[in-house]
């Protein structure tokens, strides 16, 4: 128990240091207050810790503290083989697990220089777009809940649930599917896949107007979102924002358009751009992006080519010596996978360029001077997934 007493003493000491009588931080005024949002807070949707300096209700400074869910996925991947490390990346941005896996598989395939059969490519794209819709649906519900509207959360989850059912049937899991393997996909599509996707699209189309009724057109929602957290195009570029966050500011950065992978260059879809830069623009980008994903799925669902779903690869994969980089568009932005190979069965170094990290970094910039209630709207529209930021 002696040791415990020592710890307790230390704890008390730190308490005194953290007291408000300690010399305040730079730029900290007399009327200011420091408030810790997180790591356990309903609005951070995970273990993000924000140290906010407030003057009344006005935010003066936001300092994100990271590392509460750091699992060193990059280091872990270095000890796993090229087949094995893909599943770990599902745990990064767990809402677009498929797309993360896709990025890794693409990178390994680039190193192996294998051709993917057309059927596998179509399956991959279909799954990517379904995942994107599921991710955006969850974001929609969670963001509405942050703003205090509970009901759209359940309505959004109804649609997401039917996507999850499709995933469960074909991939065998609902969230962390591990469906991508180097050279294709793990299984062939389930026989009822086409029908169920069509059913889902019908459900989605019959319910999509509800979001407009409940949120988009709602005067309270518009007031909460418009001119809140304005991010200019210059700032979006200089902070390295990607995905809907940057596209809401009018920065064209869709990897599917700019650096097409798989069969994206043969598909017809629009890159959704809004120029407002505020939370409402980011919201609109995501809502319209769901419709673009539906459009992609519509083009592909009846035209899945026959053939192999997987190229035969060796049992033990070895990448040649060199560096490989691949990028995909996840639901949150650009995910880059960078592999340095020494020619062994495991990568020498792996680096993920996750979209969430850069998107979070603008939070302080856009939150300054706005109200505390706006912060949740901004965090909601930045679509933060904490494991993606911490990895």
């Amino acid at each position, binding site marked *: 128990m002696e040791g415990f007493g020592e710890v307790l003493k230390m704890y008390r000491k730190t308490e005194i240091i953290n007291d408000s009588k300690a010399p305040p931080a730079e730029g900290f005024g007399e009327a200011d207050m420091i408030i810790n949002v997180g790591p356990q807070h309903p609005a951070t949707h995970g273990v993000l810790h924000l140290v906010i300096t407030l003057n009344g209700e006005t935010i003066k400074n936001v300092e994100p503290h990271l590392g509460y869910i750091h699992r060193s996925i990059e280091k872990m991947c270095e000890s*796993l*083989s090229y*087949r*094995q*490390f893909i*599943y*770990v990346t599902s745990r990064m941005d767990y809402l677009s697990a498929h797309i993360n896996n896709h990025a890794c598989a693409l990178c390994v395939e680039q190193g192996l220089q294998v051709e993917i059969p057309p059927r596998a490519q179509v399956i991959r794209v279909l799954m990517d777009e379904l995942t994107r819709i599921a991710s955006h649906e969850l974001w929609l519900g969670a963001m509405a809940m942050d703003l205090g509207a509970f*009901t759209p959360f359940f309505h959004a989850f*109804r649609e997401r*649930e039917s996507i999850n059912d499709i995933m*469960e*049937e*074909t*991939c*065998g*899991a609902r969230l*962390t599917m*591990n469906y991508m*393997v180097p050279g294709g996909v*793990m*299984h062939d599509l*389930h026989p009822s896949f086409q029908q169920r996707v069509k059913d889902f699209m019908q459900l989605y189309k019959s319910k999509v107007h*509800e979001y407009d*009724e*409940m949120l988009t*057109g*709602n*005067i*309270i929602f518009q007031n909460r979102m418009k001119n809140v957290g304005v991010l200019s195009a210059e700032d979006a570029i200089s902070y390295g924002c990607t995905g809907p966050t940057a596209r809401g500011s009018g920065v064209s950065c869709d990897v599917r358009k700019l650096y097409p992978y798989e069969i994206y260059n043969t598909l017809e879809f629009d890159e959704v751009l809004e120029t407002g830069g505020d939370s409402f623009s980011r919201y609109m980008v995501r809502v319209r992006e769901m419709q673009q994903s539906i459009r992609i799925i519509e083009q592909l669902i009846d035209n899945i080519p026959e053939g192999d779903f997987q190229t035969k690869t060796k*049992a033990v994969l070895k990448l040649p010596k060199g560096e490989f980089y691949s990028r995909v568009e996840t639901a949150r932005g650009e995910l880059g996978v960078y592999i340095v190979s020494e020619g062994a069965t495991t990568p020498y170094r792996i680096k993920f360029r996750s979209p969430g990290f850069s998107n979070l970094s603008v939070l302080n910039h856009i939150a300054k001077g706005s109200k505390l209630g706006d912060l949740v709207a901004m965090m909601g529209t930045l679509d933060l997934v904490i494991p993606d930021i911490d990895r």
Partner: protein
Amino acid sequence: MFIKKYIQEIWGAVKSLLKGMRRTGYYFTHHKEIITQQYPDNRETLNLPERFKGEVVMPHDENNEHRCTGCQACELACPNGTIKVIFKNELNAEGKKKKAIDKLVYHLELCTMCNLCIEACPSDAIKMAQTFEHSVFDRNELTKILNNPGSKIMDGVE
């Protein structure tokens, strides 16, 4: 005019709010749209897809025979060290010593259901089961031995 704009603004706001209330009112009165699944009650009718990855099992036939040759492919394929193959020496029909599995230890608590072991298995000895209620009171119960006691390898599987 200012007052006209003011009234229009209020009218638009009220209309948008009423629209939302109509939607929730619709769901309040239409109970057919309820999507709740009453989970423990619907255990009998719960239909999990056959590809659902619940846990790794080793199927045995009626003679208590399995298809595992002990090639360790699954052990190598597993990213988490979930599977461990323990061997024993066995006498076959001709009296020769032959290596066979004693235990195929499977740590459910480490498993991430990634399906890589099943993909790697050359003789289809293991597969994914659709069970998902894995909670137990003692962590040790999660360490499972997949082959039944006294089981043998099926004839003709190499």
